[in-house]
């Protein structure tokens, strides 16, 4: 990593560039790199088993970040890295760290390809729209799920007390404070007061106001920010970085390279994915999250995303010490079997590829609270089971699952699902009979397909 001062300096003095032109430049570079390293997409493969291919994608991604660096949108300048700096940054990256406190402390660690240690589970509302009336209880239910190691992004507060929140407004500062407060209340009600909360209040700069050791997000809570696709940061990102480093919070950075965007197809996009991870390391991040996003389907469980997820995670796991995770966003929504098929397919693709797990979440939640803690439990269970099989077997099962939903992958055709209140008794915080039945059905179908669930 580079010091914040060095990043800030380069963002003010690096070579000037125009964003759209840089996007097209990336398109040209990745096409060349795909040729140079002979990287091709195989539409039949859900989980890559070719180690050499993963290594070539790594090399290409490394070449890309060396050539293009990260782009600082507001100053319109490139933050460039030398080869030596990248090698030093990768050598210094932490393979593990702890988050949270006391009995609930979580060990967050890197995994190898086909590692038999369980994936670390980042589970929670994943910033789906959560209504303030249900914020504490919904997060309490998530925090009560024992397989969740870190509570993930407690929810997107669109409005507060009936007023829509304008980014950067005073109201958004107030909302960010409640975000921290309510998340803390939720974990304490669940009896896991030390549970780490991966925070990202979606409130632009104002989100720093969620930080408070006593009632808000603590320094032991990892904080998230996203690289702006492709390979960009802005003043808000860098402000967060400065703040997180100052309070000593672990940093969780997502890269969402867009399949069909400037990277072109899955190959170019995979190369950008690797470059994004290395760029995040250079910024000083501790967890590298990949969102294998598809521009047409707007979700992450289509055939290309499955392949991309497995390749990028293997590339990073085989060639670096970085801690990897993958986001799982689906077309089908909680309350449907399709949700289970979809998240299981991506879990099977990335867990044997060396990734931890983030999610799951519907790509297009309908209305408020469209998430389920019980489905997160099943997601985690599939993740643990996936450590018992190799990539070849994972590929077979993921392919069978993909067959089941591939024709209903367009968001308009996907099952609408249910809000939390329709899947749970909101007083007892227990799933209702119907939701339990769905869980049991999903589990037994997955077992039949060969997922070694307990």
């Amino acid at each position, binding site marked *: 990593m580079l010091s914040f001062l060095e990043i800030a300096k380069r963002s003010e003095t690096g070579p000037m560039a125009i*964003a759209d032109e840089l*996007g097209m430049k990336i398109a040209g570079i990745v096409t060349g790199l795909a040729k140079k390293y002979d990287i091709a997409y195989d539409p039949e493969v859900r989980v890559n088993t070719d180690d050499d291919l993963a290594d070539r994608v790594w090399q290409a991604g490394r070449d890309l970040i060396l050539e293009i660096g990260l782009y600082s949108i507001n100053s319109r300048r490139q933050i460039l890295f030398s080869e030596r700096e990248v090698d030093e940054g990768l050598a210094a990256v932490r393979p593990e760290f702890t988050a949270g406190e006391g009995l609930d402390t979580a060990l967050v660690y890197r995994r190898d390809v086909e590692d038999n240690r369980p994936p670390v589970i980042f589970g929670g509302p994943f910033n789906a729209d959560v209504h303030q009336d249900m914020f504490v209880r919904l997060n309490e239910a998530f925090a009560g799920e024992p397989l969740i190691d870190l509570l993930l992004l407690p929810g997107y507060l669109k409005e507060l007390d009936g007023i*829509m929140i*304008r*980014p950067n407004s005073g109201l958004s500062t107030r909302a960010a404070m409640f975000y921290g407060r309510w998340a803390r209340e939720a974990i304490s009600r669940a009896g896991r007061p030390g549970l780490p909360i991966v925070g990202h209040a979606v409130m632009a700069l104002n989100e720093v106001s969620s930080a408070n050791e006593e009632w808000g997000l603590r320094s032991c809570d990892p904080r998230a920010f996203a690289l702006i696709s492709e390979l960009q940061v802005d003043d808000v990102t860098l402000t967060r970085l400065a703040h997180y480093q100052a309070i000593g919070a672990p940093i969780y950075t997502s890269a969402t390279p867009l399949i069909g965007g*400037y990277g072109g197809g899955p190959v170019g996009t995979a190369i950008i994915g690797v470059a994004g991870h290395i760029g995040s390391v250079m910024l000083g991040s501790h967890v590298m999250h990949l969102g294998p996003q598809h521009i047409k389907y707007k979700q992450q469980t289509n055939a290309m995303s499955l392949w991309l997820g497995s390749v990028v995670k293997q590339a990073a796991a085989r060639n670096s010490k970085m801690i990897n995770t993958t986001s799982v966003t689906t077309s089908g929504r909680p309350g449907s079997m399709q949700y289970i098929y979809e998240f299981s397919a991506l879990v099977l693709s990335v867990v044997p590829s060396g990734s931890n797990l983030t999610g799951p979440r519907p790509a297009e939640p309908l209305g408020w609270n469209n998430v389920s803690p019980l489905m997160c439990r099943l997601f985690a269970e599939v993740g643990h089971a996936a450590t018992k099989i190799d990539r070849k077997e994972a590929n077979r099962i993921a392919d069978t699952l993909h067959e089941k939903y591939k024709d209903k992958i367009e968001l308009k055709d996907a099952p609408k699902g249910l809000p939390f209140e329709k899947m749970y008794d909101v007083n007892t915080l227990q799933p209702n009979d119907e939701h339990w039945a769905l869980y049991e059905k999903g589990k037994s179908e997955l077992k039949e397909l060969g997922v070694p669930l307990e």
Partner: protein
Amino acid sequence: MAEHEEILERMRASIVAADETEAMAAAEAALAAGIEPLTALEEGFAGAIRAQGEAFSNLDIFLPELVLSAKAMQAGVSVLEPALKAKGIDAARSGVVVIGTVEGDLHDIGKNIVVAMLRSAGYEVHDLGTDVPIPNFISVAEQTKADIIGLSALLSTTMLRQKDLIELLNLKKIREDFFVIVGGAPVTEAWMNEIGADGYGLDAHMAIEVLDSRTK
């Protein structure tokens, strides 16, 4: 005529191949062969770029290919432009658009696609980028004598800025001067109606359909 058809085919191929030099050469050949400039534009370039747009919607091609095709089209059209003008046809015949992603919002891929498609459909486009304060849309629209303002918003919170634009136009008593089209994932027909916009586009295709058939 066979020769004419051959040249039109060359023009179409240059767009698909995203070859700027070839697009310009083919346009010159078309004019030299006496093809009507409007025919050259419509049957040579426009059909091909529409097909590229369609191919992109199905992801048979990707964003860079679409952008490059649109660039080739722009280069080719620049050759036809004087001949079009001489016939009293404005190359920006479809309209002048000021477009951007609203304040507080950084999502630009969808907007970039709409921009590429609009340019290739004969619109003069002023792209203001992302995180654009609402008054900027109006001042640039006035400066460029635009007749269309397009607003992209991908967040449910930033959608509200689309409503602000309408209110601000009303306040300035210039609402009738502009056709306002809104778009972005959370934007629906109901939202368009609620805020009193003139059109909305589910995707870039629909954006062009809506704008081409506008009466304002």
